[in-house]
């Protein structure tokens, strides 16, 4: 595999039920920035496990991951 092919390696991730492709090596923090999530009142689950805010920069997404990004809306 050449260097250029390695650089553009893509992963398929499901975010809130919708499939998207990203370059590999994407952290949760970078994902949130990518989708324009606000800084406050946000929570993330990766493959049905909560990821605490402190771990967002460290966790890198893998091919096939399912990510839920939630916030608060009116209701109840």
């Amino acid at each position: 595999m050449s260097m250029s092919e390695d650089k553009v390696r893509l992963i398929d991730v499901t975010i809130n039920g919708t499939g998207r492709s990203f370059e590999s090596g994407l952290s949760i923090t970078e994902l949130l920035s990518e989708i324009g999530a606000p800084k406050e009142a946000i929570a993330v689950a990766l493959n049905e496990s909560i990821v605490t805010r402190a771990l967002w920069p460290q966790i890198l997404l893998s091919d096939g991951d399912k990510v839920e990004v939630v916030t608060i809306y009116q209701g109840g």
Partner: protein
Amino acid sequence: MNDQSAATSPEADDVLNVANLTIRNRLILGTGGAPSHRVITDTVGVSGSEIVTVAIRRFDPNNKRASIFADLKELAVHILPNTAGCYSAKEAVLTAELAREALNTDLVKVEVISDDLTLLPDPIELTLATEELVSRGFQVFAYTNDDPVLADHLVKLGVAAVMPLGSPIGSGLGILNPHNISIIVERSTCPVVLDAGIGCASDAAFAMELGCDAVLVASAITRAQVPPLMAGAIAKAVQAGRESYRAGRIPKRRFALASTENDCRPFVD
């Protein structure tokens, strides 16, 4: 919770301690059904409510609908996240954990619904979710049926508040089984919040007169023709109902009891 004797003078500081909160306004506002965020902020302002519920939903990157967080943060109210839309204990626990992470709060109103038609709580899944959430350190407000036995179970599991429904969510049918609500109030050792079914101010007053510690109202306000006007009316009704309960109603009698003494009537020897 039967605390009628706790504060019987009109001047007494009649606060409600629930979970880790101390509140004076006993109307909890649900935000579901509001046509806009402005309606919510207006109704919070008019009612003086100190606790407001919110739902946990997927973030919408297209911003077709905006989070209510910024509006509520400005109002400095206590935010009570719920698990609305959950049909299993597993979903409810995961949603509660998301809420805790998003809002940095242990408060959660647990709702586990059985079906779309009735929106009644599923007692088995509700109990499982409550048990798990309490063990994880949540302060659980448990939305439940008007069943005194189920309420007892939830109280024993360690909930912060038990929230029996008056009638199905959004029905506006009022309190269909006041007898059961009274039993729940008499036996509960934690606050009882009447939740769901309130249609108008008199329903809220009735709930408080039954001894409920607070009332949660959403649709009756958010879907009223003039929501802020209804918010004010229900807030007053909650206060009036509370004072009426504390004052102690007269017993019901089968026959009349004269309020004026019969002695010394003129022309009667």
